């Protein structure tokens, strides 16, 4: 046991029009063949997911499925997995997350990024790595921690994104959705309108794919979805309203040192 700084290793993956960062932590050196291979596999997972699910590539399996050129059984098996996950997310969210309500046929894009990050994370479970985070532009899948302590993750303040609204003790994953400004890309599945009810919606839980879908649902559905997540085992949520007012589920893991605004709960 020493007080040495933990060993770290970082990797950037440019995929799906965004930047994914991989941060690894260990008690010993991480420049090993096992870790090299794990990172390579994590990258491959992302690129495979992009090829399969990109709605920008005309010949991607998801697009061919949407056009009815292939049946589900002819698509890579991940497509069925993802659609199953979407179905569950739709049910859990009470329909507020609904890839089937998108224009142009089923569009699992809102699920795929979290799903791919979760898959990439699995590739990083190799000897020597005691903590890992896959951060897909603000949606994070993780296991372990740093130096035996859970990761701490800041949640961006929607009205001032260079500042943080709070810090969360991370166990598993966290996803944040919201339209901070104009140009809403979130859609109310019931009306088809591009709207949101809160400025920022964060969801934590074991599976980033579901957390991501629920965060999208929460941003659009607001309190109704927050109540649903409250009843859901292992998942917690925080909303920040357009007026700055916050709501959260009872188990949301605020980290202690950032409760200055009186948003204290557990931890």
């Amino acid at each position, binding site marked *: 046991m020493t007080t040495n700084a933990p060993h770290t290793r970082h990797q*950037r993956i*440019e995929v799906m029009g*965004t*930047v994914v*960062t991989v*941060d690894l932590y260990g008690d010993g050196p991480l420049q090993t063949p096992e870790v090299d291979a794990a990172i390579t596999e994590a990258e491959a997972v992302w690129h495979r997911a992009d090829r399969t699910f990109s709605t920008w590539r005309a010949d991607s399996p998801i697009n061919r499925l949407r056009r009815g050129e292939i049946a589900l059984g002819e698509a890579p098996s991940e497509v069925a997995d993802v659609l199953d996950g979407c179905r*569950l997310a739709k049910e*859990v969210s009470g329909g507020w997350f609904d890839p089937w309500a998108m224009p142009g046929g089923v569009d699992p894009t809102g699920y795929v990024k979290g799903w791919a990050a979760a898959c990439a994370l699995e590739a990083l479970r190799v000897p020597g790595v005691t903590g890992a*985070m896959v*951060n897909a*532009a*603000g949606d*994070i899948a993780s296991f372990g921690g*740093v130096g035996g302590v859970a*990761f*701490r*993750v*800041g*949640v*961006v*303040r929607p*009205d*001032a*994104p*260079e*500042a*943080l*609204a*709070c*810090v*969360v003790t*991370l166990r598993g994953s966290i996803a*944040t*959705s919201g*339209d*901070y*400004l*104009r*140009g809403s890309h979130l859609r109310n599945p019931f009306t088809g309108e591009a709207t949101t009810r809160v400025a*920022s919606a964060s969801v934590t839980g074991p599976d980033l794919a579901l957390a991501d879908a629920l965060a999208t649902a929460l941003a659009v559905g607001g*309190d109704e979805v927050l109540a649903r997540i*409250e*009843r*859901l*085992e292992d998942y917690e949520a925080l909303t*920040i309203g357009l*007026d*700055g*007012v*916050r*709501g*959260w*589920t*009872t188990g949301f893991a605020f980290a202690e040192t950032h409760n200055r*605004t*009186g*948003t*204290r*709960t*557990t931890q």
Partner: protein
Amino acid sequence: MKRTPLVLASTVAGLTGVAVFHSTPQKVVLSALNATAATTPTTASAAPTPSAGATPTTSATTVTPTTTPTAAATPTTSATAAAVPSTTSTVVAASASRSATGPVVNYYYGQLSVKVTASGTKITGITIATLSDGGNPYSAYVDHASLPMLQREAMSAQSANIQGVSGASYTSAGFAQSLQGALSALKLK
């Protein structure tokens, strides 16, 4: 002087009795949901209810660690302002506070370049130097949401004791590209 972007809007003390969610005692378990649509009344692990209400985080200026503190009139050299994806980066000033603007790169909605300010080996600010988007409303979005993600990422190690940042964003590879250019110019990477 440490410049943490961890500025919480703690000024507003007016505790509005707000939406603290009081739980119902029953939890939905996913595995059960997966099988049937049944809900299982398990756990209810007596999560302690938050005592205080939430505070609205209005106003409260946040310190944006941008531009050079030493008023040394660091001219952001033009050259990069033109929408030319040149690979050259421009280093301005030498001594304590320095800044560099990365190449203008294409991103999803247009073109942008990133400016980095550093003091010694510390990054003190990351801003967008140029942004052209043809009037696309996402530009504001990108400016306000995506950039800070990278800024946080680049600065977190030396400021707040956090390992990551979660936020809605449209981070584009373009940012990374231009940022890299600026960092290289400052010999920070």
